[in-house]
């Protein structure tokens, strides 16, 4: 009988040892990559980043290079070639799609495709920078509020409420005019915008993180950590942060799309990045002229599609992340 039992135990040991074990992180990754839409989203983002980051190196044109046209010969002339001052020279505006300009030129005679690449750089950077700023402030503030509670929590949460009740667009319009009055250079304007957006958005993150930490703090493994006498710093670093990580990653992906969208709205309103620099938002802005809206789809549709695809892709990733972190949410 003893033999039988040890044999059984051995069998079970062998069986268990041969099982493939996955860490929680690997499990999440596995579930994420099983989600087709999320993979599509990830693919789109990778393509977009490559397109915007590397694309300009392959483009022969500059971001705000204006193309001229010899009205007599109909030949296009680049600024660098010189002789653009002649009376027979005009700006090559709204050129149709051709082998030289794959997506034509815009109302100021600049190459649309090249501008989409540069514009994408701005839009994606804005997304990432704003999300990073909001996460750093939000997680820090939310973490402090949730972990220490009491008066600190009270103060931070009231602050969050104040930040949540600031009307965003009017504030941005005011900031834009202040910057104009202060004479901020157009290429630096976008950095200020990013900063302001990041600072305005942290409130939502802080509230979520605080809630998460409050519920984690009550869990028995946190109590166990307290009972075993583990240092506060280790408790925060080893137990709390890894367990709020899912929600942080989730906020990051979900917000990424939103921020890109907001940036386009701001650029569209003329608050964001300014002439002559490109962003997807201010490229779509040209639809204000009904002639362009009607006759020159090639100028405004491509950046519009880029915005749509990017935002959609971030949302797909966010959904995939949520399902991967918490399989119970999916039915």
């Amino acid at each position: 009988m003893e033999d039988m039992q040890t044999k059984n135990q051995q069998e079970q040991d062998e069986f268990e040892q041969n099982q493939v074990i996955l860490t929680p992180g690997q499990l999440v990754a596995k579930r994420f990559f099983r989600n087709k839409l999320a993979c599509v989203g990830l693919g789109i983002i990778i393509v977009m980043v490559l397109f915007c980051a590397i694309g300009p190196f392959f483009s022969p044109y500059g971001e705000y290079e204006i193309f001229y046209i010899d009205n007599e010969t109909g030949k296009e002339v680049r600024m660098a070639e010189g002789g653009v001052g002649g009376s027979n020279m005009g700006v090559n505006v709204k050129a149709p799609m051709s082998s030289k300009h794959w997506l034509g030129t815009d109302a100021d005679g600049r190459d649309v495709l090249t501008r989409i690449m540069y514009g994408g750089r701005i839009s994606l950077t804005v997304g990432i920078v704003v999300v990073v700023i909001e996460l750093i402030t939000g997680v820090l503030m939310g973490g402090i509020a949730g972990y220490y509670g009491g008066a600190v929590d009270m103060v931070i949460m009231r602050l969050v409420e104040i930040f949540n009740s600031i009307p965003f667009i009017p504030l941005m319009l005011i900031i834009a005019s202040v910057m104009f009055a202060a004479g901020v250079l157009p290429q630096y304007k976008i950095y200020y915008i990013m900063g302001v957006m990041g600072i305005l958005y942290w409130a939502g993150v802080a509230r979520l993180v605080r809630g998460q930490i409050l519920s984690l703090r009550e869990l028995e493994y946190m109590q166990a950590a307290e009972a075993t006498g583990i240092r506060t710093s280790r408790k925060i670093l080893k137990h709390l942060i890894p367990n709020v990580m899912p929600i942080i990653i989730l906020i990051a992906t979900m917000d990424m799309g939103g921020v890109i969208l907001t940036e386009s709205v701001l650029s569209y309103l003329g608050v964001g990045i300014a002439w002559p620099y490109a962003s997807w938002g201010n490229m779509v802005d040209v639809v204000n002229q009904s002639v362009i809206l009607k006759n020159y789809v090639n100028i405004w549709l491509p950046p519009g599609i880029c915005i749509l695809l990017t935002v959609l892709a971030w949302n797909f990733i966010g959904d995939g992340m949520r399902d991967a972190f918490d399989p119970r949410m999916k039915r």
Partner: protein
Amino acid sequence: MADKNQRQELKKIKKYNLKKYREYNKQMRKKRVPESEYLTKMKNPDNIIEFDNLQSYFYTDVGTVKSVDGVTFDIPRGKTIGVVGESGCGKSVTSLSVMRLLQGPQGQIAGGEIRFNQQSTGRALNLAKVSMKEMEKIRGNEISMIFQEPMTTLNPVFTIGDQLCECISLHNPEMSKKAVEERALETLKMVGIVRDGILKNYPHELSGGMRQRVVIAMALACDPQLVIADEPTTALDVTIQAQILDLLRDLKDKINASIMLITHDLGVVAEMADYVVVMYAGRIVEQGTADDIFHHPAHPYTIGLMKSRPMLNQKVDRLYSIPGNVPNPVNLPEYCYFKNRCDSCVEACSGPYPSLVSLSDTHKVSCHLHQGEAAHKKQTGGKQNA
């Protein structure tokens, strides 16, 4: 290499699952199921429910989980049957299969019959095949259920009266509002709640024991033929549990319904049940009358369960414990599922899964230890007949 094999395996599972899901959805979309598909005949007209080789499977990403795998037992009219087992043994899935409440398309009844003796029409229905519309009429009306957690069973935004009256009038549309209310009060009285204004109370205003009483009243409101009680006292305190058990035992004689009591607590079963079914890893390992099971347990698992429970006023130095854990529900082995934890293993245990053999008219067990015994009995019995 192993990784590749594994991936192929997973792909195969996925494909198989999709096929099953599609079949299920097709079945669900069917508006009308012809009567001939679900009309059957009871083996014994005195039974309310007959499970015949019921198989309820869950098609998960890692493989098919055979939660209930070939379960056969009867629920006689007016009797209480206790289904005992540890978590994950399939006892709850069995009850959900009766109610057709399995979460489709992952969970489905993959085979077998659940024959239901419908009194109101005098028909015998196969609940595994019945259309959802027909099922809605049966659910709550002829078969009702008491769940474990009273707080989640009651809707917190409606009063007790609203919920109880709705339950009654839904199944008795011809009753007047006043009659419905009277009936509601009557059932509440039956479960021992006599209090003014109880119908106007919200669930959160009642204590746990009271809530469970209300849940029981709801289950009994329509004079069901079968009440399924899924761990009705597990969430309650000992003194409240005693109250509820007392009430249930009392009601057992008052109403003419059968009770299917699902629990992990052998004590509760001993108090309530006439017949006991012991389940392990989706199969029945032993079944019989309460006397059979508690006084002459035959399966090592049943014996182990009884011995591992400390008893009041009985001193043992060391509890008997069943070693090991419940087996992984995916890819169960060919041999007896209990083999790895059994301390009376014999050679035959490495062979195929033992079949259910009768030890007496009521007592059946599925274990190799008793296989010979039963065969022996059959032989001598046969000789006598000759």
